């Protein structure tokens, strides 16, 4: 629902304050220890962050897309590892259930997802299925009141903390591509479900991805989301919404880096004056500022259009493509403005540089976004709509 301006401001202000006081001071520690401290996670739960996208009747806040984007912009102001803690419950881990779940499934799971009592993950990617999401090999075979799942999922965010998984698996072995897929809610306590060790990653220490292995895991038919064959649609509708959220996070991180680089540039002196007085440094600051502003305008506009019920597939893909590439450029410039200090871990800039690299890869690589936009435009032309 849309909240009034005063309530919305108060909400955003509280998220900002939490980020400033609880997250920013321990960014280095989180990366060092590869863990977000429990008291901060508990604080995020008490704040209600896990439930921002869950409807109010299930104990969440039911924020509309614009409001969620505003929250994500604030969460972007600190290490992306913090956002990742609640990120799956806000996005890919819960939205399949919100959009496709039946009343019983929603009542059973959503209140606990909203409170953060249970953590969720989204299992689409496999060793041989990434950008080509329709090539999922994990099988789900019907056996009476159950499906039996077999297969391996890869790079599953928060899997090592997860209680509930949304799993894409092939129910129709004779139908290749997306049409043969269905999606399931699978509890991680189900016999036959094994979670692999967290992968060592380039950045975002404190957030984890693992393999999830299904070995004859029996999942009740009642846990299927939507009908048989709806799996690909479930996955795509979840990702569509997630792209705007990720775009906002990218923009938030870019704004943080712009603040870091400009504050450094006015203090750091070379050739007898602050480097902010040097035009080549100003160019890096200016390009970063203008690009981040463009991304902010894009993501807010797309979110507002989605809230009005418009189809935003092309806009969401455009936002994800632009914002994730933009924050990569901004992080690169931030290292450049910091000079040698940008390469030294104590300043935290190189950490952000590594952290933001994933944004161009997950929830649809830049190249997948280009295909979505390109194909979409061609279809519009064919239909005489452009």
């Amino acid at each position, binding site marked *: 629902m849309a*909240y*009034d301006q*005063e*309530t919305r*401001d*108060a*909400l955003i202000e*509280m*998220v900002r*304050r*939490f980020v*400033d006081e609880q997250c920013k001071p321990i960014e280095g520690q989180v990366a060092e220890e590869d863990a977000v401290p429990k008291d901060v996670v508990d*604080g995020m739960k*008490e*704040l*209600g*962050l896990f*439930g*921002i996208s869950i409807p109010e009747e299930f104990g969440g*806040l039911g924020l509309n897309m614009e409001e969620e984007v505003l929250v994500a912009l604030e969460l972007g102001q600190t290490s992306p590892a913090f956002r990742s803690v609640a990120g799956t419950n806000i996005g890919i881990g819960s939205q399949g259930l919100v959009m496709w779940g039946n009343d019983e499934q929603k009542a059973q799971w959503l209140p606990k997802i909203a409170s953060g009592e249970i953590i969720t993950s989204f299992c689409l990617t496999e060793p041989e299925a990434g950008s080509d999401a329709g090539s999922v090999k994990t099988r789900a075979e019907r056996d009476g009141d159950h499906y039996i799942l077999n297969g391996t999922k890869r790079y599953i965010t928060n899997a090592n903390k997860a209680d509930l998984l949304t799993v894409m698996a092939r129910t129709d072995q004779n139908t290749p591509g997306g049409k043969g897929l269905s999606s399931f809610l699978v509890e991680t306590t189900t016999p036959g479900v094994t979670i692999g060790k967290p992968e060592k990653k380039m950045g975002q220490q404190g957030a984890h991805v693992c393999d999830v292995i299904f070995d004859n895991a029996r999942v009740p038919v009642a846990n299927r989301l939507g009908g048989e064959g709806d799996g690909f649609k479930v996955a795509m509708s979840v990702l569509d919404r997630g792209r705007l959220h990720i775009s906002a996070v990218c923009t938030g991180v870019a704004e943080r880096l712009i603040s870091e680089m400009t504050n450094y540039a006015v203090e750091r002196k070379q050739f007898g004056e602050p480097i902010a007085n040097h035009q080549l440094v100003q160019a890096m600051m200016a390009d970063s500022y203008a690009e981040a502003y463009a991304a902010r305008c894009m993501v807010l506009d797309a979110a507002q259009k989605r809230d009005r019920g418009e189809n935003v597939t092309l806009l969401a893909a455009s936002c994800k493509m632009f914002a994730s590439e933009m924050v990569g450029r901004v992080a690169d410039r931030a290292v450049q403005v910091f000079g040698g200090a940008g390469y030294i871990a104590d300043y935290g800039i190189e950490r952000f540089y590594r952290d933001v690299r994933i944004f161009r890869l997950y929830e649809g690589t830049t190249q997948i976004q280009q295909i979505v936009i390109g194909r979409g435009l061609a279809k519009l032309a064919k239909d005489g709509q452009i």
Partner: protein
Amino acid sequence: MKVLVPVKRVIDYNVKARVKPDQSGVDLANVKMSMNPFDEISVEEAVRLKEAGTATEVVVVSIGPQQCQETLRTALAMGADRGILIKTDDKVEPLAVAKLLKAVVAEESPELVILGKQAIDDDSNQTGQMLAALLDWPQGTFANEVKVDGGKANVTREIDGGLQTVALDLPAIVTTDLRLNEPRYASLPNIMKAKKKPIDMKEIGDYGVDVAPRLTTVKVTEPPVREAGEIVEDVPTLVSKLKAKGAL
């Protein structure tokens, strides 16, 4: 037991205050404002008393411009039950605030009024004490622990060189110090719910008290810029430098 907590809207503690060019005061145009941090501690203490079953209702009151409503909403989101906004765009000094609060106390009959020991904008540290005097109630100022039990409030105070515990007969005034508690973050769902809690809108005229300022601000200036330090070779040089500056 009803608890009354006055809250003041002040310049945010993170903002670097700037003096107006004409030196008449601090420039507040487009500056972030928030609840006085000591008042946050007061609200937290009152809400904890309510959660412990000691207090039955927490009423928050603010005096100032319309935007003080946001400050009251913050307190309501933290757990206060209802608010009172006494609207004025004029400057109100501690004595005027104390007189207005006395009138609010007469209407609300709280058994405990918890105030911040001072506001971070003018650092007066007067309102609580003045209110206690006007009401002729006992006061426990600079509290770092408050225990309410059987018609008494035991208040441990931070004083020079240690702590002092005083027992006050209720009704009483308490002013809060930094170490009393750590205020909670208002949760996002509670921020939403706070919207539905009532705020009574009042005017200064409703209370019939004289709030005319007693003080005139002559001049406000920035603190002097700290001069750069100097590293000296050895102790004798240090001593001679200090002597030269008249510090020894």
